[in-house]
């Protein structure tokens, strides 16, 4: 959700690049819809996103059996930090020719990590477009 909130702030840049962004959840359609349409997580705090109704700009995709997540090597089906976790979050960028050109595993380790991650994704998207 945090990564998606940051991406939304850069929506104009994504559109200028003519890029498409998807967010995949290894969850059923209902949870995917809630993730896309409702700000259940960050609305509980007092940060800049607390008053927003929805934080997700990308097209949200439900991968209910976790097939795509497993193919992309991010499935975990495990507990972590006291919670059940289906996936370890990852970014991938695919260039205009359909080749995977960038992969990033967010570390969530500093307050500004999200912004840097999204900037790196935008940079990879720009390179993907430039090769056209």
């Amino acid at each position, binding site marked *: 959700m945090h990564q998606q909130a940051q991406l939304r702030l850069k929506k104009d840049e994504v559109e200028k690049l003519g890029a498409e962004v998807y967010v995949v959840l290894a969850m059923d359609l209902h949870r995917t819809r809630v993730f896309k349409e409702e700000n259940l997580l960050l609305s509980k705090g007092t940060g800049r996103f607390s008053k927003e109704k929805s934080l997700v700009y990308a097209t949200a995709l*439900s991968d*209910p059996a976790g097939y795509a997540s497993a193919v992309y090597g991010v499935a*975990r089906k495990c507990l*972590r930090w006291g919670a059940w976790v289906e996936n370890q979050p990852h970014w991938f960028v695919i260039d205009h020719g359909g080749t*995977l050109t960038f992969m990033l595993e967010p570390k969530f380790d500093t307050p500004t990590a999200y912004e840097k991650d999204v900037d790196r994704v935008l940079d990879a998207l720009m390179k993907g477009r430039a090769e056209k």
Partner: protein
Amino acid sequence: MHRMTIALVGLFLLPGAGWAQPTSPLEKYRRLQFPAKDENFAKGWQERVALEYEIINAADLKALRLALKDEDPFVRAIAARALGILGDKDSADALAELVKADKEYLVRIRAVESLGYLKMKPEVIQLAIKDRDGGVSWVAKLAADQLKSDTDYAKQLREAYATGIKREVMGTAKLGKPAPDFSALTSDGKPFRLSTALGKKPIAIYFAAYDG
């Protein structure tokens, strides 16, 4: 004759012979080298994924119902999940008991999630919203919403698992190689296939956890 019988039984019990090996997916799950514990987060996930598919597709309701009482909470949890996805309404009472009384939150999560898929026991789902564990409460709220929906989420899940998954396709996304194709549903329920979007624009895909 007696000695021959003993010899044959011994042969089956040898490692590698049929009877000595766990044959059911549930039994294999019970004996996972890397169960779904925190310390195994990066290890053995392929086997956990493969066995989840196998358990659901095997649809052995009798074994799954028994497994709701297994000593191993991970086995109880996967059995609870599978029974919900399989639409086994006969297991609703047992799932409700797990929601109310299982000491492991991961079992309560999977059990209440399955009551949502079965669209049963709304009173138990309401109780779970007040669960002492935040994760159970979170999932219970989602399950309560699912009760109000006409969508058969369990059927969607069964269809997704029915396509199966081969171990050799897991983790095949590699830099410099063509992006592996996959299908999914958009949040408004429309079918999506990555290959139809390739070759037109650069694409970014974020595989998310709910809080990441």
